[in-house]
């Protein structure tokens, strides 16, 4: 593998990322899947980087999952998106930062549609006024939250207490990265590094001390795929996608996986459990799985945040193997405490997938 070749491509796919005054829109699913991630992002931006990041209490889902699942019609989706823009305009912000990759894809797609079909934009403005009385300005900058984290990866590294390095061996951890399909597969020039060799997560991994694993099925979908997952009878396709990826990455013995899409960590994490229980196969060391993290969780980890504040206890594949390798301290007794300190009870452990 020639790194210079990748670098040449990375140079071609750089995008404008605003450097302050962000209007943050949360994901409708991430708060359930990985509840500490968005909070960690806001904390890092405010406390570590001193940025202005605003959340509007009235913002909603972008309807992306319904749209891609063929349930929400295009006009409805665009009108909901227009309403998010209106909230941003009213709050006096211009830089939109979605937490979800699918939302990022949706916003980008809507703006591209309006760019090519101004009459559609006019129609949606009309719908929005009729429905809510609101008006909006087009965002000056749209960057995914991973783009922002990427932009400040060096600042984060400068403040980091830990590196993605095995403290016993001194070797960098081997990290698989997976960008969500909607990050740059629809609009390659809207993603840092493009679609074939995306750089957004690679940049973070390199900066924070890890080593990126490039494996043959790197570009393959994580398996979310909306319709594949939403209907139970189709889930075999979803798990088959994740399965294909695990089989392909397995020989590289990755220490961890980092993702930036809500679906990817969810499926790459939970399907390891399902595969283990269906077929008895596990992909990590000694019957464990390969821990899967969001980039915010990893940023929080290197910054020395308490793993349980980051929500790592909600992962199916236990994260302790990685914490131990890096040497991040944690209190196992507090793993299943709620934020108010009350014990929530220990979940039932799987049969085949070893969890701590």
């Amino acid at each position: 593998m020639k790194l210079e070749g990748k670098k040449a491509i990375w140079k071609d796919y750089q995008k404008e990322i605003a450097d302050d005054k962000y209007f943050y829109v949360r994901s409708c699913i991430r708060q359930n899947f990985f509840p500490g991630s968005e909070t960690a992002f806001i904390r890092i931006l405010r406390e570590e980087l001193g940025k202005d990041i605003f959340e509007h209490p009235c913002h909603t889902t972008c309807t992306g999952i319904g749209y891609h699942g063929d349930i929400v019609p295009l006009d409805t989706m665009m009108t909901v998106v227009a309403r998010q823009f209106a909230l941003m305009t009213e709050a006096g912000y211009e830089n939109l930062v979605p937490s979800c990759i699918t939302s990022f894809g949706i916003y980008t797609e809507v703006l591209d549609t309006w760019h090519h079909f101004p009459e559609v934009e006019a129609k949606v403005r009309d719908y929005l006024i009729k429905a809510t009385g609101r008006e909006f300005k087009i965002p000056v900058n749209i960057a995914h939250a991973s783009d922002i984290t990427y932009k400040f990866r060096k600042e984060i590294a400068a403040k980091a207490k830990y590196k993605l390095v095995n403290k016993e061996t001194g070797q960098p951890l081997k990290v698989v990265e997976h960008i969500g399909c909607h990050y740059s597969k629809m609009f390659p020039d809207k993603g840092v590094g493009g679609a074939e060799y995306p750089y957004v997560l690679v940049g973070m991994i390199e900066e924070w001390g890890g080593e990126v694993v490039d494996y043959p099925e790197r570009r393959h979908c994580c398996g979310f795929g909306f319709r594949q997952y939403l209907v139970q009878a189709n889930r075999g396709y979803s798990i088959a996608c994740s399965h294909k990826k695990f089989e392909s990455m397995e020989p590289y013995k990755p220490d961890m996986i980092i993702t930036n899409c809500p679906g990817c960590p969810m499926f790459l994490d939970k399907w390891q459990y399902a595969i283990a229980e269906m077929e008895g196969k596990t992909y990590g060391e000694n019957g464990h799985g390969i821990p899967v993290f969001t980039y915010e969780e990893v940023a929080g980890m290197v910054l020395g945040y308490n793993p349980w504040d980051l929500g790592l206890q909600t992962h199916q594949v236990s994260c302790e193997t990685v914490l131990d390798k890096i040497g991040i301290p944690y209190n196992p007794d507090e793993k299943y405490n709620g934020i108010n300190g009350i014990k929530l009870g220990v979940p039932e452990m799987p049969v085949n997938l070893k969890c701590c």
Partner: protein
Amino acid sequence: MNKKVVVIGGGIAGMESSAHLAALGYEVTLLEKTDKLGGHLLNWEKLFPTMRMGKEVVTFLNEGVEKGKVNVIYNAEILNTKEIMNGFSITLNNNIVLESDAILVTTGYDLFDASKKEEYGFGIYDNVITSAELEEKFMKGEKITTSDGKIPKRIGFVHCVGSRDEKVGNTYCSKVCCVTAVKQSIEIKEHLPETDVYCFYMDLRMYGMHFEALYRESQEKWGVNFVRGRLSEACENMDGSILVKVEDTLAGKPMKMSVDLLVLMVGFEPSLGTKKVGKILNLQFGVNRFFKTQDQHTLTNVSNVKGIFFAGSCTGPKTITNTITDARAAASTIANYLSGHDIHNRIMTSDIKATV
């Protein structure tokens, strides 16, 4: 006094047309940007479909240039041109000024830059090379090995790289690469009889005399395999071999296959010189960005500017045979023009006829 013709570009088209113009009695100056005549042919060892040496053709062409006492100017670059009484004045670098009654443009093609097909990993994966690089190995008598010096057990050839591809902006067929792949496959089998060769094609264009026979020989005598499908992507396996993904369209199933070496059959693009000279001389370009001839069937060597003519692959991909034929045709068209026939008027009459 003899009439003068300046030929721009010392590849095979420029050489053969110069020889013929000289034989017709004109005073010919041949401008070449490098310090050698022969163009791309200098980099090609054996030629399809006869496997004769490229050198022999260069020798033949050189003889014509020498016998005709063509004035060859090496390392020439055109700075500007002016129209003067019944002709042109051409200023070169090193301040040489040439006058001519007619100009023949033979500025040729460049090979497609394979790194633009990002998903094939040229310039990134060590075992992805181009057809030109493979030819260079044949030329230098180098061993055909993988990047780590092993004998490849399986080699893949990818047809149509940079040709017939909307995504890179080249929708035309480059015409020579199918049969070149067949030729190079046979050469691989000659060097490495134990190596399996797979050609991935969309259509096999064996239109030339004896091309079909070569194709058949590749199967019958050498056991070369053909898969009708175009690569969707290439990835690197852990051992450095290349995993290709393709639909075996005839089997009606997607397929993956590992090859130890992947050869990309790079197509033609208008050369940098073609673009530059076209601008200086105000020449029209066609839809494929090669020069536009005034008529597809009848005025194949005639440009939009009176007194300027074309030969060779500056008007589109051509085989060596076609280029040499075209060069001779251009010489005779110029002779026609210089003896007073108004070629542009001939367009007018045919146009009038057509409209009537």
